[in-house]
């Protein structure tokens, strides 16, 4: 197997290592060289761990020579969003407030699990300040350097898209895994809220925060999810877990398409790609059922209110002290406004969260759905110098425009996987979301894998020569 970081997936690299087509050191060195070549324009990383990564690579190669058993991620280059603690490294959260912060003493629990299973950390990836936003400056989109990668896990998604990591960790409070995955043509998996440990991850809104992987294929994303979920008995069985439903791929699978809200006010190319994706799913044997979720807008509002109030509480001291002037003005405004929301409104949002969860559960029960499919976003990547999104109803600010379709699933806490489903007229990626019942990460991955195998979107990659 040729080591081509423009196209190789995590699991292909694993096969290449197993077959001795290349060593861990070679894979690591090539990844670091690619980082050096692309970072001046891409800015996906806050800090690159060249020396640590090469040392760890040599250790893994010597272990292999000693015929020690390979661990699930041995030697595979993984990026870590800079809100996750890595022992001995600073967690700066993209904020000037934390530029002089002491190094972390321990790995975040999810980072520990990746390290334990053999991952090599390439570095800390760029996040929007305190994971609060969708732009991720100064990182740019590898498909078009004049555009944003999305956020807040923008550096993770950009590095995966360009091949300066083969998988990366993100976190999702209002869409921060799925938004950059959709805008960079990568796969983003937001697991079920509340199931994965947040220990060692800087919080934004504890009632919503969810860590998860960004990867180049559904199988890669599932593998990383199984590792961070501590499902060690399953990591060797990813292929079996992704087997087709029947001969056509999705026979007997019932997929809901929501007829309003999620198909309203989409960019025309996004809408067309979504309809084409639904047609592909049908061709694979899935039964597609049109259904309505009247509470979708309320679900978005629930997530928005909880997010704002809790993030204001997390940053209580930051917005009231001398440090306030160090916060990006837009981020500061978010936190200040959250601090003004009355407590009874927050409590109403918490109660309403149960109501919207109940309402979506009824949609699944009424139509006996295995999953819901929807566009991940209403738009493709906006320009970095004009953070307005052109939509049929008129231009909208990048924040509300990009979180409109992602936040409802943070309110319900359901698992969602976003996969590439096409390109717009400017050759910018478009994402499709597959939304599962709680705890059904495997089910949505299995559906997404069949879709992936039936399309060519996953074989189209951002090219380093455009960077």
């Amino acid at each position, binding site marked *: 197997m040729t080591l081509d970081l423009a196209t190789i997936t995590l699991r292909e690299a694993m096969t290449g290592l197993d077959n001795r087509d290349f060593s861990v050191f070679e894979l690591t060195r090539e990844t670091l060289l690619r980082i050096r070549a692309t970072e001046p324009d891409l800015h996906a990383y806050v800090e690159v761990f060249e020396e640590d990564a090469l040392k760890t690579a040599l250790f893994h190669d010597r272990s292999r020579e000693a015929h020690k058993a390979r661990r699930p991620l041995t030697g595979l280059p993984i990026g870590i969003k800079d809100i996750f603690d890595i022992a001995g490294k600073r967690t700066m959260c993209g904020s000037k407030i934390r530029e002089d912060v002491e190094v972390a003493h321990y790995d975040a629990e999810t980072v520990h699990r990746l390290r334990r299973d053999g991952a090599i950390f390439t570095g800390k990836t760029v996040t929007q300040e305190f994971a609060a936003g969708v732009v991720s400056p100064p990182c740019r989109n590898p498909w078009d350097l004049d555009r944003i990668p999305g956020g807040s896990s923008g550096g993770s998604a950009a590095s995966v898209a360009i091949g300066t990591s083969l998988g990366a960790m993100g976190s999702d409070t209002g869409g921060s895994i799925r938004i950059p995955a959709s805008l960079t043509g990568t796969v983003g998996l937001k697991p*079920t*809220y*509340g*199931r994965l440990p947040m220990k060692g991850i800087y919080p934004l809104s504890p*009632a919503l925060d969810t860590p998860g992987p960004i990867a180049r294929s559904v199988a890669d994303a599932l593998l990383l999810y199984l590792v961070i979920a501590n499902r060690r008995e399953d990591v060797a069985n990813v292929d079996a877990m992704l087997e087709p439903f029947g001969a056509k791929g999705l026979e007997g699978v019932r997929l809901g398409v929501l007829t309003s809200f999620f198909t309203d006010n989409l960019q025309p190319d996004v809408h067309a790609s979504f309809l084409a994706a639904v047609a592909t799913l049908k061709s694979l044997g899935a039964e597609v059922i049109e259904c309505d979720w009247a*509470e979708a*807008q*309320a679900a*978005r*509002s*629930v997530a*928005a*209110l909880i997010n*704002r109030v809790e993030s204001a509480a997390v940053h209580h001291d930051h*917005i*009231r002290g001398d440090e*306030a002037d160090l916060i990006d*003005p837009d981020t500061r*405004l*978010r936190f*200040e*406004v*959250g*601090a*003004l*929301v*009355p407590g*009874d*409104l927050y*409590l*109403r*949002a*918490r*109660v*309403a969260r*149960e*109501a*919207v*969860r*109940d*309402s979506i*559960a*009824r949609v*699944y*029960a*009424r139509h*006996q759905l295995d999953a819901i499919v929807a566009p991940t976003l209403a738009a493709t990547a906006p320009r970095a110098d004009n953070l307005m999104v052109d939509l049929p109803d008129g231009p909208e600010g990048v924040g509300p425009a990009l979180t409109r379709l992602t936040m409802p699933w943070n309110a319900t*806490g359901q698992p969602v996987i976003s996969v590439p489903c096409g390109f717009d007229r400017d050759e910018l990626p478009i994402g499709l979301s597959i939304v599962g*019942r*709680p*705890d059904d990460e495997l089910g949505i991955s299995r559906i997404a894998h069949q879709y992936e195998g039936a399309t060519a979107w996953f074989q189209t990659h951002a090219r380093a020569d455009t960077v």
Partner: protein
Amino acid sequence: MPDRPPPTATVTAEELRVLLGIAGLTVSEDRAPAVLAEFNAQLAHGRQIDSVLDGARESGFPPYDPTFPKITLEDDAT
């Protein structure tokens, strides 16, 4: 006593100044309009959730459970 406005009612610039003082926040004059606009946008979210609170307001504050409630087709006759 006059009726108390609902917590989701749009606020004015003057009311915002009072709220900022209560919250212990200092916002310069040039930033105040943006804060006011964003705050009223959040209050609009509050009005959106009113539609799902009918009957739910008295249901207490259950601990979060990520699993769906058990619902059968028979339960869902409505």
